[in-house]
């Protein structure tokens, strides 16, 4: 691959053969999919695993004595083991399947927060959080009178750890922040944040929506207390996510939703609850989706998460090299290491939606808007921005097509300035 412009440990051109959607065209151009931070595409292996499950093994789980129910239960529990292994969790009982990161974070706030936080207790968050790690806390602020303390960014747009240390006080019970920012691409030093939180007797909640797909995750090395992820951003299907929590915390938490599967015994007047993780999985779970997520995890493990992270980093370095030299283009987020494959930017005088429409006309899919982080838009002074995000199937050619299209878009709109 002498013509490569980035040094990457993996071969995206070979991996792309597993992703049929990447062969399609959009508006007459080969698709350049740069919206994986919103949702990744799926390899055949994932879709086929789900089809094989439905065609050969499906029944409800944990409910019947018949063979299919046992097979479905085995597949579902094997998926839990697989996710636990991916996160280097000490034990699979502490992995709860949810719909997505959002539901996992809501579960933490509602169940752990509801049982443990009282008026005046403090939660420390960064100003760059996704709405999923803001709005549930707002609920508890309104209901309980908890206090939310926000930590700003450094000049190079990373979470300011000195400010974070200063924000943690006697009443701090929780620190909640992202592993990787979905807008800035900044990777948080989770271990350091965990140490700061624990020194104050607080727990650390990590929004892993971008971290799990793009970075090696070891919840024991990170020393976090909760880690939330979405399957669909990491090659898996929509409709399944996971919450990993320290088993001793999970054991003490009340149920999130009530219904089948999460009970021990039910009478007309009352009910007692199952142990973990079943206590948090009311109703028929997304079994096929969990099977798909397990196949996605197997795919990522075969490629290697270090390689995925290095590939993203190589692409973002190359993209920044080209974009930073352009007049009229502002790229947000830190430079240097600990920077994921996310390029959020604005073109002077052109709204992000118009940029996205112009790029879509060339078959290039990017995100535009507030990226579900409206408060961060205020901090950056840009209520809307455009975002290109990379993954293991993104090539350097695609980065070039993207940057060339940004230049053309800038020039097209500049003609009317």
């Amino acid at each position: 691959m002498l013509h490569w412009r980035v040094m990457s440990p993996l071969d995206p051109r070979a991996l792309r053969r597993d992703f049929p959607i990447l062969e399609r065209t959009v508006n007459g151009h080969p698709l350049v999919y740069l919206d994986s931070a919103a949702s990744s595409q799926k390899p055949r292996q994932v879709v086929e695993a789900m089809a094989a499950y439905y065609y050969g093994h499906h029944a409800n789980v944990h409910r019947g004595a018949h063979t299919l129910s046992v097979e479905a239960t085995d597949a579902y529990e094997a998926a839990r083991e697989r996710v636990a292994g991916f996160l280097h969790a000490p034990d699979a009982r502490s992995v709860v399947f949810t719909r997505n990161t959002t539901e996992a974070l809501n579960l933490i706030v509602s169940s752990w927060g509801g049982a443990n936080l009282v008026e005046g207790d403090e939660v420390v968050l960064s100003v760059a959080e996704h709405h999923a790690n803001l709005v549930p806390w707002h609920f508890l602020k309104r209901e309980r009178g908890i206090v939310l303390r926000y930590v700003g960014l450094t000049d190079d747009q990373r979470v300011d750890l000195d400010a974070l240390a200063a924000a943690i006080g006697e009443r701090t019970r929780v620190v909640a922040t992202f592993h990787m920012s979905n807008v800035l691409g900044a990777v948080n030093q989770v271990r350091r944040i965990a140490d700061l939180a624990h020194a104050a007797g607080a727990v650390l909640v990590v929004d892993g929506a971008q971290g799990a797909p793009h970075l090696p995750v070891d919840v024991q090395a990170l020393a976090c207390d909760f880690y939330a992820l979405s399957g669909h951003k990491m090659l898996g299907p929509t409709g399944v996510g996971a919450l990993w929590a320290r088993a001793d915390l999970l054991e003490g938490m009340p149920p999130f939703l009530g219904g089948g599967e999460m009970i021990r015994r039910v009478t007309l007047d009352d009910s007692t609850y199952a142990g973990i993780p079943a206590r948090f999985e009311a109703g028929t779970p997304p079994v096929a989706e969990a099977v798909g997520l397990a196949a996605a995890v197997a795919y990522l493990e075969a490629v290697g998460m270090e390689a995925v992270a290095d590939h993203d980093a190589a692409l973002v370095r190359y993209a920044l090299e080209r974009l930073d030299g352009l007049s009229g283009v502002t790229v947000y987020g830190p430079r240097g290491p600990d920077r994921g494959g996310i390029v959020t930017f604005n073109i002077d005088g052109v709204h992000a939606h118009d940029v996205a429409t112009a790029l879509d006309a060339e078959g290039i899919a990017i995100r535009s808007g507030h990226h579900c982080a409206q408060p961060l838009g205020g901090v950056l002074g840009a209520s809307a921005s455009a975002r290109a995000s990379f993954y293991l199937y993104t090539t350097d050619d695609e980065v070039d097509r993207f940057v060339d299209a940004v230049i053309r878009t800038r020039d097209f709109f500049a003609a009317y300035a």
Partner: protein
Amino acid sequence: MSFLESLYKDVILEHYKRPHNRGALDEATYVQEGINPSCGDELTLYLRVEDGVLRGVAFEGEGCAISQASASLMTDAVKDRSIEQALDLSRAFRAMIRGKPPAPELGELSALQGIARLHARVKCATLAWTTLDAALGASEAEAGGGS
């Protein structure tokens, strides 16, 4: 003509770069906020209605070329029209955005016809008009009318 040129016609880009009737309106009789929650675009519409006629129309807001040009074009189009006429124009505009051929009374507004092919941008084009409808609905209710 490229796809971009056919979508972002000169008149749209002119109104985007140099919007008409932009700013707050003194003596507004109605102030209506419009928001597009999925993208965060916000618009404030100011109306001065005298004897059922829109004598003053202005807007403030932030958004894409489509939403800003649409708002600017709308203020020109509905100024000095009756409430009834403004609502008719709103219906005609929406029909065009849904893919119907533009009605003649739309005039310059037909520059936005291309949006009908871009489902992702329909809300950008209609934000100013849904805000207008909300404001006029309020004004009609207040006048004890309604249609």
